[in-house]
């Protein structure tokens, strides 16, 4: 069995309004930060997972992302994977 560290990034789709991102952008500008064109908030999920090789682990992570971590009606996901 190999062990992998996976980082999953879940983001609202570009077409979906992100009010929390808008509010944070507004606060960033009030802080004096200049030049912010866009600010959107997502989430990152860290998973440690065992499996027989990278392909099998990718299959598991794909299922988790598609069915649980993200709601693909409003969110996109991507992930990076590192063998431990």
């Amino acid at each position, binding site marked *: 069995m190999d062990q992998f560290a996976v980082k999953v990034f879940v983001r609202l789709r570009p077409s979906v309004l992100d*009010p929390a991102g808008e*509010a944070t952008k507004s606060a960033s500008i009030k802080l004096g930060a200049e030049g912010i064109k866009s600010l959107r908030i997502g989430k990152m999920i860290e998973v440690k997972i065992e499996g027989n090789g990278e392909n099998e682990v990718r299959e598991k992570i794909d299922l988790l992302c598609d069915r*649980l*971590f993200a709601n693909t*009606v409003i969110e996109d996901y991507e992930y990076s994977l590192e063998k431990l």
Partner: protein
Amino acid sequence: MVNFTVGVVVFPGSNCDRDVSWALEGCLDIRTKYLWHESSDLSDVDAIVLPGGFSYGDYLRCGAIARFSPLINALDDFVKSGKRVLGICNGFQILTESGFLPGALTANKNLNFICDDVELDIISSKGGWFNNGSEKQTIKLPIAHGEGRYHCDSDTLKKLVDNELIALRYKNNPNGSSFDIAGITNEKGNVLGLMPHPERACDETIGGTDGLFTLKSLILK
């Protein structure tokens, strides 16, 4: 109301289950039974309400964890048999997360938790959930949500419109929902999800009775 029992689902974090039961039993004389989310035996209920609240603390996304409960897994056959399912607020979020209804519900546009009475236009008679046969085309119901902004893509919206699946629209959109949508049904009409709370509008002493018709229609075949 003899021989008809409405199952009221209780998730960890549900908080409108007792209100729904009170409205059905106390105002409409319809028998109810609480169904714990780990139960998958739906054989002795004739209709089901998924009440409002914060199932599983709304962790990850509203309704996302509830979707994997044994009860929701058993709901597929129940819905296919034509029996009626009403999802209110968090119940609506669970119905979209689990694919019984299209679209998704996400954070209100202004990020506020909105607790207010809203005016709603009755759009579709699908499923007979609303009394839109008479002169009354507008009803007033309370809302109480932080994540009630209905979102769907343009293809889904077209399908909702073409198939008359939009049940309710806000007169003054409070949360940024696509097309002012407050409630939708499935194609068969036996599943309704809505953000407003009909169970909180079942007695004049607490502000109105516009929710009675929807709860009463649970007993329709």
